[in-house]
Structure formats: C-alpha cells, structure tokens
C-alpha cells in the first residue's frame, strides 16, 4: 500500500481527514479510521464497491452526518464545530440527483440560490448563467419529471455550483448514465477543475477514476486500502505486461521458452503470450528481435498497463463491482 501520511500532513490541503470513524447504532462500522488529504485544485477519486463506506464518508464531510470518531475539515473548517462555514464553502451533488419532479429546472436553481443567501435578482441571473453552462436553456421551464437522467445530473451539478463553491462533492455522479451523458459530465468536471474547483468524487467506476482523478483512494470495509495517483497505484500490481500475439498458434511453446530471458512469460488465449518486464515498452524491440531470429512471425505486440481494476483486485481480493456484504453506505 502507498502511504498517505505524507499527503495527510500537507499544509495546503483543502480536505483533511484524520482517523475518521462512523459506527451506526446497529454496531456497523461503516467508516473505520480513514485518513486522507486533498490538495486545493485536485480531483480526488474515492473508489470502492457499494457498502464500502464511500457515501458515509461523503455525508460526514458534507456535514450531513456526524462522525463517531476522528476529525475532518473542509476548506479550513471543522465539519462538526464549524458546519455552517463548511456548508458555505461546498457544493454537493449526492447520489441519484435528488430533485423535486414538480419543479422546473429554473425554479430549482433559483431556490438553491435563495438557500445560499443570494438575493432574488442575483439568483435569477445565476440561474440563467448555469442553465447555459449545462446546456439546459431549452428545458429550463419544463417540470423535472420530463428530464432524462443525463439532464437531471447536469441540473444537479448546476445546483451544486450556484454559490461558486471552493470544493465540490459528487457522490457517484454518473451512476446509471449512458456513455454519452457520462462523457459530457466528465468534460464539465474537467472544466470546473481547470477553473480551480477542488473535486471530491466517489465512484464505483474504475474508468471514471482513471479518467478524472489526479489521485485515487480505494476504500474497502470502511478503511482506505490504497491511495496514490493512478500510475502509482498501477505499480502495486507489479511490472507492466507486454502482450505478444503470434501468427502461428503452434509456435507458442517455442516462443515461451525463448522469451523467458526477457521476463516472466504466461500463456494467453489463441497463441498469445504475456511477458512481465520492468522495461515495459522498451522491451518491445528485443522481444521482436528474439522472435524474428527464431523465425517466429509476430502478429501484434501491445503494452498492457495495469488498470485500477487490477489494483482493486490486488489490494482487496475482490472486484470493485462486487457489493460488500453489509451495505454501509
């Protein structure tokens, strides 16, 4: 596991979590000593299966739930003692876009403006700006029950931005969305981050964390089991692999023996081989030369970087899309 102690001690962190715990009255320990730090302007991906403790952690950081142990601060304010200041500094889009289906997009944005202390005229102006930003101008005066899932998510994001928060918490923002809506939301999140917003994002999707996050924390059974950049986490799996596909499947045995000098070789389907080597892509040329000298024809060679999926399995022993037995979130 990559230690998070260095980053936790970071002085300029916008989110600091130390020994955070939440034990429910049923005895369920949903969050069990979480430590993490998120720097200003960073996108932090919080990854884990259902019930791992992601949503409980977010609920504590957004002041919706009190911790039973440890400390957390957001934007320099303690989430328990200075909850009101925390709420002024954050934007929140929780799971499943909780929006009133009998209100219009514009009404909801104006209500959100009022909740954040904007005057009526300011609220209206901000609502117009945000409707344009999330491309909902045409649907602004329609009731929410006519919106698609993607439109609801975009409106949810717009509502979280009404008061120009320093920190944005997004709890599984793309769950249930089609690939096009997901990609459009990712683009908007990158844009927001470029403008300086710190983003704390929970997700079950490894691809989402890889695509968006500067750093990723993996939580399982209420504990952070790994943390680092996607590249750092990739190294936890071991050496990168090179996939070699041969034209003649019958040559795979001979090729395996020859390539053993370059690294650990394992068989793949249809005459393919994987060679694990610390040289990564730099091993391609010597491998092709070895096979060429032995007159074994190569169809393709590909570098296989470890994915977060591999990391997840390596550190937790199960896949990210498997639910934890007791649903803690």
């Amino acid at each position, binding site marked *: 596991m990559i230690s998070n102690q260095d980053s936790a001690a970071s002085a300029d962190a916008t989110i600091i979590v130390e020994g955070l715990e939440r034990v429910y*009255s049923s005895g369920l320990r949903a969050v069990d000593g979480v430590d993490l730090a998120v720097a200003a302007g960073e996108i932090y991906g919080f990854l884990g299966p259902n019930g791992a403790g992601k949503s409980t952690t977010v609920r504590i950081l*957004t*002041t*919706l739930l*009190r911790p039973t142990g440890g400390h957390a601060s957001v934007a320099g304010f303690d989430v328990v003692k200075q909850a*009101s*200041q925390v*709420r*002024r500094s*954050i934007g*929140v889009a*929780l*799971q*499943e876009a*909780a*929006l*009133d289906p*009998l*209100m219009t997009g514009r*009404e909801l944005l*104006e*209500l*959100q403006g*009022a*909740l*954040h*202390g904007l*005057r*009526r005229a300011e609220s209206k102006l901000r609502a117009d700006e945000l409707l344009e930003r999330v491309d909902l101008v045409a649907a602004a005066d329609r*009731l929410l029950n006519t919106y698609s899932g993607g439109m609801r998510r975009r409106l949810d994001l717009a*509502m979280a931005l009404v008061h120009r928060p320093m920190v944005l918490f997004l709890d599984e923002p793309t769950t249930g969305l089609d690939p096009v809506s997901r990609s459009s939301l990712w683009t908007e999140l990158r844009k927001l981050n470029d403008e300086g917003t710190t983003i704390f994002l929970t997700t079950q999707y490894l691809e989402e964390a890889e695509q968006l996050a500067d750093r990723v924390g993996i939580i399982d059974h209420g504990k952070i089991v790994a943390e680092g950049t996607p590249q750092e986490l990739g190294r936890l799996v071991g050496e990168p692999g090179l996939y070699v596909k041969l034209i003649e499947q019958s040559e795979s045995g001979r090729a395996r023996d020859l390539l053993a000098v370059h690294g650990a070789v394992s068989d793949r389907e249809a005459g393919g081989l994987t060679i694990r080597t610390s040289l990564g892509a730099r091993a391609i040329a010597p491998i092709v030369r070895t096979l060429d000298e032995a007159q074994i024809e190569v169809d393709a060679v590909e570098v296989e970087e470890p994915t977060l999926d591999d990391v997840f399995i390596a550190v937790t022993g199960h896949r990210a899309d498997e639910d934890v037995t007791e649903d803690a979130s």
Partner: protein
Amino acid sequence: MSSFALERDLATQGRVITALAKRALRVQLRRAQFLLPSFLLPLLLLAVVASGTSAAQQLPGFPNTGSYVGFVVSGTIMQGTLLAGLMAGIAIAGDIEGGFFDRLLSAPIHRVSIVLGRVLGTALIGMVQAILFVSVALLMGADFKGGVIGVVLTVLLAALSASAAAGLGATIALRTGSLSLMQNLFPFVFVLLFTAPAFFPRALLNPVLETISVVNPLSYVVEGMRAALFDSAALGSVWGGFAAGIGSVVFTCALAVWAMRSRLRS
C-alpha cells in the same frame, strides 16, 4: 453577533423561508394527490353534510345561524387545514425519502427555517382554502353577519390552524421519515375533527366527545371562526380562537424543531 450581522442573518433567513414557502405552495398546487384531499374532499363533505344533516339545526340547543351550511363551513375549513397539514408532513417525508431533504440540510441555513418555510407555505394554503370554502358557502345560501372583517378573521384563524397542523405533520415526518406511515395517518385527521365541535355545537356532542373537545385546541379555533363569521359571542370567542391557534402553532413548531434536531443527531 453584531446588530448589523444579526439583521443581515434575519434578512437571509427571511428570504430562505419565503423561498421554501413558495416551493411548498407551488408543489402542493401542482400535485393532484395533494390538491384532492385539501380542497375537493372538504367541499364534498360540505355538500354532503349541508344537504344530508341540515335537519340537525332543528335540534334543541342548536344555535340559530340561518343556514346549516353557514354553521358547518368552519368545520370544513378545519378539515381542509388539517388535511393540508397532513399533506405537508407527507411532502416532508417524501423529501426525506427522495433525498431532497439532504439538499436542504447541506445548505447554510438555519434548521428552523426549513420547518418554518413549510409551515408558512401551508398557512398560505389554509388561507386559500378558507376563502374558497366561505365563497362556496355563500353560493350555497349562507349569510355571514360578521361581514368582511369576520371573513378576514376566519382566514387568519385558518392560517393558524393550517400552521399548527403542518407543525404536527412535520414532527411526525421528521421523527419517522416514512412516507407510507404519513399516508396512513389520514383517519386521525377525522378523529381530531370529530373531537372538536366542527359540525355540531359542543352542547350536542356526546358526553365523551364533549369532554375531549374541552382539551382539543381545535375546538376553540373552530368556534372562533364561527364567532367571527356570525359576529356572535354566543358561538365562541374570536380571541380564544386566536389564543388557541397561536399556542398550537408555537407548540407544534417547537415539536417539529425538536424532531429535526433529534433526526440530525441520530
């Protein structure tokens, strides 16, 4: 807190309460499942009671109010406001189950404002109900000696009754967070209604109901409405109605705020 900061905070919370009240009103008027119990059901009962039991006014001890519909319209207003309060509770439970409540809690607003916004929205619905039901009663032949002032006082009493009912509905919703439980509380509205002199004068209630009606604050509110509409102290006390109404609002809203705090602690 300096007086300037206090004033600014109060102004902000005022805007929050108004915005939440507008939302409550808007959503309630857009949802048929809320409109039917709050507006249509009381009108149906008014029509049925006024035509089916009008002979009651011949009973000894029944006050002379001209038409029976004029007498029972206060009960209809009470019924409507109680149902509006229940609908407020259902709406809060719906917000809790649907996650909208978390959106409110994650905003930098006083928790009391969330309760007061819903209560104010329901009070406005109560006022609309009172104006509608009194208008219908006038069309059905009622003659209110209290005139415009009597109607205005009745509308204000309706606002208090709706606010108190909303406070009670909010308390139960916040304690339980259960939409289905709130929906099953419908019959209890009628228990509250029939243990107050909503459709008959107190003297004609059976002894058990009459005893209960003494401690039911709604008795004083409904009698206050009647006294205002007919400008008759013999039918009740307008100021007694306001005292009972204001007391009930303060009590149920305090309960709702307590329920909110308990919910946030858990």
